[in-house]
């Protein structure tokens, strides 16, 4: 498939992209760039490849795949909300066999790096999915979706309890190659996200993805009924960005070296930079793709410019930079002579 964004390369009059090493690592996985798609917002990459070269971003994180085909929920599945949207898809998908045969095969042929998101109804499902993917060489890492809010029983949201979150992750770990990076995708709808992080790290997670959507609800004032067929749904988009940045910050404070994929309402390069400064090693772009299908490539270039503008030669130097002590920050600011009487 040919890409077709009309404005290729720098716009007339725009400055060249500064030379910044955008490479990043998630455990044993090295990526040439830090921008990823967010699971559930890019299908399996094929549709977006019409708008930008999917091999130029860090990786495609595929829509969560389950063992069996899944119809998803009834419609309406979506509502636009202020600077966000509510969705209630219910993990519609082809099931693992068809996913491997069609989607993964295409991604491999295309030469994209792939992080496969998996979801299950039970702990055993996750183990089986990991075992099935163990022999598929195009899988660069697993993202374990334990936080989809669109399930009938909220008690099934594994990420809402430390013990169930750990059970899933240890099942995936047990059935995976010991070198396979395993990233647990966490829910913000918990009292203490650091406690959940601690439990999944102890269970063998290489790192965490934060955040999944925030559980929300919209009532239609014409029908005077819940707008979504599934009643509740997941809130995403810029509306939840501060919640996501806070989660990344808290986890980074507690775990100085843990690989973190940050996401939640990233719309431009400065939004991505916020996550990096808070502690994210990589940043996923989700709902913004619905607004601008070329967003991941655009944001990656904007992030590179933003880093260059701030004097960074390496993305890695900017990761967690906001955590430096206030004294150090003040000294640095003095050097720039920012203080005016």
């Amino acid at each position: 498939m040919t890409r077709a964004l009309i404005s290729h390369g720098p716009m007339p009059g725009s400055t060249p992209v500064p030379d910044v090493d955008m490479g990043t690592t998630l455990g044993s996985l090295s990526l040439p760039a830090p921008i990823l798609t967010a699971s559930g917002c890019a299908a399996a990459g094929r549709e977006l490849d019409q708008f930008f070269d999917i091999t130029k971003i860090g990786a495609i994180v595929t829509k969560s795949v389950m063992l069996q085909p899944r119809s998803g929920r009834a419609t309406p599945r979506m509502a636009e909300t202020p600077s966000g949207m509510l969705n209630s898809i219910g993990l519609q998908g082809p099931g693992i066999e068809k996913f491997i045969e069609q989607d993964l095969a295409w991604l491999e042929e295309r030469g994209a790096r792939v992080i496969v998101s998996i979801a299950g109804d039970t702990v055993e499902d996750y183990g089986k999915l990991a075992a099935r993917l163990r022999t598929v060489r195009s899988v660069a890492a697993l993202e374990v979706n334990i936080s989809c809010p669109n399930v009938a029983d909220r008690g099934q949201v594994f990420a809402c309890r430390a013990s169930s979150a750990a059970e899933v992750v240890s099942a995936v770990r047990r059935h995976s190659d010991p070198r396979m990076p395993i990233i647990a995708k966490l829910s913000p709808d918990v009292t203490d996200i650091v406690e959940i992080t601690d439990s999944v790290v102890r269970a063998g997670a290489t790192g965490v993805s934060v955040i999944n959507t925030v559980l929300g609800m919209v009532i239609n004032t014409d029908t005077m009924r819940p707008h979504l067929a599934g009643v509740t749904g997941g809130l995403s988009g810029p509306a939840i960005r501060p919640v996501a940045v806070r989660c990344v910050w808290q986890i980074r404070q507690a775990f100085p070296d843990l690989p973190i994929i940050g996401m939640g309402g990233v719309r431009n390069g400065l939004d991505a930079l916020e996550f990096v400064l808070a502690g994210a090693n990589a940043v996923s772009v989700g709902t913004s793709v619905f607004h601008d299908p070329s967003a991941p490539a655009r944001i990656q270039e904007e992030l590179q410019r933003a880093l260059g503008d701030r004097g960074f030669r390496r993305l890695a130097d900017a990761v967690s930079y906001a955590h430096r002590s206030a004294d150090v920050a003040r000294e640095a600011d003095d050097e720039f002579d920012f203080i005016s009487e």
Partner: protein
Amino acid sequence: MTVQVKGQVLDVRRAGAYHVLSLTAPGISEKAKPGHFVTLGIGGEESSMLLRRAFAIHQVHSRGVYGGTLDIVVGVHGKGTRWLVDRRRHDPIDIVGPLGRPFVLPKESVATVLVGGGYGSAPLFMLAEQLRERGCRVDVVLGAATEERLFGSLELKRLASTLTITTDDGSLGHRGRVTDVLPGLMEANDAGVVYACGPMPMLQRVAEIAAERQAYSQCAVEEAMACGVGVCMTCVLPVIGEDGVTRMLRSCTEGPVFRGDRVRWSDVGTVPADTLGAPVAGGH
């Protein structure tokens, strides 16, 4: 090939209850077929309205200095469509298209009936032209709640062999629904194919009438979409495949035009129990 372009607003004009927007859309208008649609970014780069709005391509033109342009028909339903019709000449607009599967045209010259509900008539203009070029007879029926909510009756009168109008309140044409007059039209012109665009209940009835008469129906649905390009999975409806299996298909990439006899119209808004991967007891 689908592209994303920075277009420009050329013109916004009133047409009854609707507005017609002309946009520069180089690379899109040249490839547009009847039934294709575009999505527009709403409210600029920092907009609080994240979701693109989808519109059937109404007309395309090749206009000298502007390259290709296209027209869409907008009904103001909320903040996003209000923002759109408030655009002025030369305002920039982000356009993605052409999107979706267009109407399938008959290989031979058969008689056709085109049915438009409200501004659902928008994609029927290009369709009527192309059917005529193929030697197909084209009869058109337009319906709406009131005369004001009909779109394009004058122009369609020129393109069609006959134009029949229905309004719910009888303010113009026959009082009643398009589907009241459709069987008579199909009988009169011995129609082999019916093309329709409009609200779901209208499409359902059109599909039923076509099936009763052993005619094909091609129905363009209007489902709420978030992305328009096939990645979000919000715009699905139950459709029976060649293999007899019902799947929840995306109206953006597998539609918006579906064979009327394939869509499970009565089940739209639900997941029928025999759908591939349908929830077992307890749901999901």
